[in-house]
Structure formats: C-alpha cells, structure tokens
C-alpha cells in the first residue's frame, strides 16, 4: 500500500514537474510571436478607425494612473474584490484623476487567460472558477503561469519584446481614457507584486513613446534591476514589514544587490530617485495584506493606510 502510494506520488510529482517545464518553455512565445508577426494583439485585429478631427474624444484628465496587478491576476476584465475596493478609494481620494485598472500585465496578445492560446480550455475553466470564488485553489495555477511571465519581462533576451507589448497595452488603455499622446502629461504606474516589474520594464517604452515623465509606485513590488529604471522619473517603493515576498523577491536579481554599484537599480538609488516607505505590519496579501480591511494596530484599515501613502506619493511627484 505504501509502495503504491509512493509510486503514484512520485508519478504525480513527475507530471507536475513536467507541466511546470512545459509552462516555462512556452512562456516567452506569446510576446515573441507577437513581435515576429505570428500573432496579433486583440486591439490590432480591429480595423483602426480613421481619425476624424471632429470626433468627440473623452476629455483629458488632470492626471493618469495605471494600476498593474500582481501575479494572481487572471484577466483584465475583472479584479479581486480587495483591489476593486483599493482602486475605488484611490479614485475618491484623487478627484480629476483617471485610474486605469483593466490592463492585463501578463499577456501580450490577449486581455485575459480566457483567451490564452495554449491550453485555453484549462485557463477558461480557471478563470470561471476564480470569477465565482476569487480565493479558489486553482488560483495557484494562475500564480505559477504569471510568475513565468514576470521572468520573461526580467529576461534580457525576451524582456525588450514583452515590455514593449506591455507598454502598447498601457498606451491603448490611456488613449481610451482620453490621454493625448504627445502632450507630455505624466503617467503614474502603480505596480503591485509582479506588476512592479512589468511597470518598470514598460517604462523604457512608455517614456519614449509618450515623451512624458513616468513615475512608478510599487506596492510589495517584485522587480529586477531592469534597464527601465533609467527611464523612471521617480519610484516610490512601499513595503510591509510582514511581506515575505518583498524580502525574497529582491534576492534572485543580482542587479539589486548593493555590491552591483553600476546596475540600473543601484544607479537609480544613488541618484535619489527612489523613496522607500515602510508600511508597518503589512503582509503581501491575505487578511494582513496591503488591500485588506483588517485594521492596523492604530485601528486604521490596512487598505486605507495604503491608499493614503499612495496618494501622498503621487501628490509629492513634481
């Protein structure tokens, strides 16, 4: 009986490992296929409407913020309830500001895992399960898949293409909300967890294609010393003392080690372009996470404290 269990357990571990390898190997193909012209983005498939000078465009807002969610994000079409609450509170605190939260940072040619080309039946199922119950266990599959997309963004071979695709998605979303490219209006990227890496990676292209200053606010951010650091005007780094991901997340990236003095990250630190803000006893996610309504020792809900710090960070930008 024990032998049978061990045999089958080993088989299961073997199958899981194989699935992980397949996922990892396929991870760069979406963005590379898009660059090579093998795949088109959903937005590109629709014929571009001719620019009518008399067409009524949405009014340009005072400020534009793009929120990129963490690796648990399954689709740009819906958000986890606690993030929806965070965005709603942030909008209320920053009148005249457009806050965009429907960009999917973990895919180049699609806006949600329900449109994923490899194993789309599986991802459609996972997406539906998460829609019904955001804390469903299958969410781990999304986490693993999206970790590989963050790795694609970090990788010096694939990152340039992936991050360009992410920048295009952000620009499309900005334009849909009235942003006029060329006006030079600053854009604030808020990156939570793995969304921080995509925010910084995309900054290389956003800064050049929009010809505008790009500011970044990271919340529990997992990010490398991406070349995009050079293009970020200022970065606000928010971390919780109980956030294990913050501690673990910086170690794999050599460019973030203090000894690598010339890395883009350390140069950005040296130029005092980074403001580090400790967030108190906050965890990466869950009941003690940045977006939780659980109160801090001072009685303030965690999400409220996060919104206040993010608001101050954004308003302190030039």
């Amino acid at each position, binding site marked *: 009986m024990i032998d049978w269990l061990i045999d089958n357990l080993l088989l299961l571990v073997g199958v899981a490992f194989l699935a992980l390898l397949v996922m*990892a*190997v396929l991870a760069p193909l979406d963005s590379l296929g898009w660059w*090579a012209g093998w795949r088109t983005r959903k937005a590109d498939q629709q014929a571009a409407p001719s620019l009518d000078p008399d067409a009524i465009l949405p009014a340009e807002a005072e400020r534009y913020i793009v929120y990129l969610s963490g690796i648990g994000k399954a689709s740009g079409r819906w958000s986890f309830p606690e993030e929806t609450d965070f965005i709603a509170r942030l909008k209320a605190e920053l009148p005249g500001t457009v806050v965009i939260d429907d960009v999917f940072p973990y895919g180049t040619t699609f806006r949600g895992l329900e449109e994923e080309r490899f194993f789309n039946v599986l991802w459609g199922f996972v997406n539906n399960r998460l829609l019904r119950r955001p804390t469903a266990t299958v969410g781990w599959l999304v986490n693993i898949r999206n970790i590989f997309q963050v*790795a694609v963004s970090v*990788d010096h*071979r*694939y990152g340039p293409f992936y991050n*360009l695709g992410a920048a295009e998605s952000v620009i499309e979303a900005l334009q849909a909300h009235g942003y006029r490219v060329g006006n030079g209006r600053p854009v604030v990227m808020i990156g939570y967890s793995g969304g921080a890496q995509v925010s910084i990676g995309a900054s290389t292209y956003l800064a050049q294609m929009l010809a505008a200053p790009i500011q970044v606010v990271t919340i529990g951010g997992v990010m490398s010393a991406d070349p995009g650091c050079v293009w970020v005007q200022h970065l606000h780094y928010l971390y919780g003392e109980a956030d294990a991901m913050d501690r673990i997340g910086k170690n*794999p990236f050599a460019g973030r080690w203090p000894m690598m003095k010339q890395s883009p990250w350390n140069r950005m630190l040296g130029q005092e372009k980074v403001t580090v803000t400790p967030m108190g006893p906050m965890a990466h996610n869950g009941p003690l996470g940045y977006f939780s309504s659980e109160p801090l020792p001072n009685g303030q809900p965690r999400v409220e404290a996060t919104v206040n710090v993010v608001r101050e960070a954004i308003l302190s930008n030039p």
Partner: protein
Amino acid sequence: MADFFALVGSALALDRSALAVAAATPGALAAALWIAFLGGVSLMLGQSVVLFANRVSRWRFVACLAVAGLVYVVGLVIWGITIWLSARVFGLDILARTITFAVGVGQAPFLFGFFCLIPYLGTSLQRILAVYSLLVVVAALSAVLEVKLWQAAVLAAAGWILQAGLSRALNRPLAGVRTWLWRASTGRPTPIMRQDALAALTSDPR
C-alpha cells in the same frame, strides 16, 4: 530506435564501457550524427529569440532550425578532424570516424537545448549543458580511444584550440558563406540585433 535511445542514455550517464561497445556496432556513426543534428536543432530552438527578433516567418523558422542542425554537425565534424590531427601529433593512429562518433554522442545533453527557452534560467542552463556536453565528449573519447580521461581531455582541448585557430584564420573568407546561409534560410538580408529593432521602433514618439 531503441539502440538510439540506449546510446543517448549511455552518453548522458557518462557510461564509458557502454559507449565503447556502442562505438563498435554498425550504424554507430549515423546514430551519433543524428544525436548531433537533433542536438543542434534543439539548441537553436532554445536560442530562437534571434529568429523571432528578425521576424522570420513560420516556414522559414522551421527551415532555420534544420539549417542550424546541419551547420552544427559540420562544425562538429571539423572539431572531430582537428582532434584526429592532434591525436596524430601525439602519435595515436586512430580512425577519424571513431572520433567523430565520440564528438557526436557528446552532443546528447543538447537534445535538451530547447529548455534554454525557459525565461531567466535559460542562459545559465545553456552553460550547464555546454559543460555537460564537454564531459560526455571527453568520456566518449576516453572510451573509444582507450586512453585515460585526462588524455582525452587534452586531445579535446588541443582539437578545440586548433579549430578555434582555423575559425579565426578563415573568419573573413567564411563571412560570405555565413551571410549567404542566413539570407537563404531566413529570407532577411542581415541579422538585426533586438536593440536595433526596438530602438527604431521607439525613436518616434507616437
């Protein structure tokens, strides 16, 4: 087919006695060359970002993999010849095909070269596979030539140095061949580095 996989297994396990036996069987050289070809194809797949960056079409992509496999085999045969020449210098009288067999099976680790596609870890994996492959070549040379491991390592190194010297000397005359191969397989005039491609794209603000 079973023999082919057995040969791959022996190579990956650095099993010198099994490799010595396999080298004496008919079809051993062909199997070794197939391992080298497939290893070259797999490695090219792992490094295929260069093809994607140059916007190679799907059919050209497949053609490039095949061409890369062939070029890889040609390179290995040249390495085999330089090892054979080095062996002659050391007074060893052996068949060039025996050495080509050893060099060919040594590429067995590169059958997993497509795993170099894995983001972030892929480049390190490629280095690990290269070291692994070198170890298999040395073990196979030691097995087929019936020499000690260090002697096989010296032969492999001597052959490699000779090949590197040749490659440097022929760099200019071969440049035209390389360009022709690139054009014929990809349909693109010259390889574009990804930085160039992206710089051109972002130079104009939208």
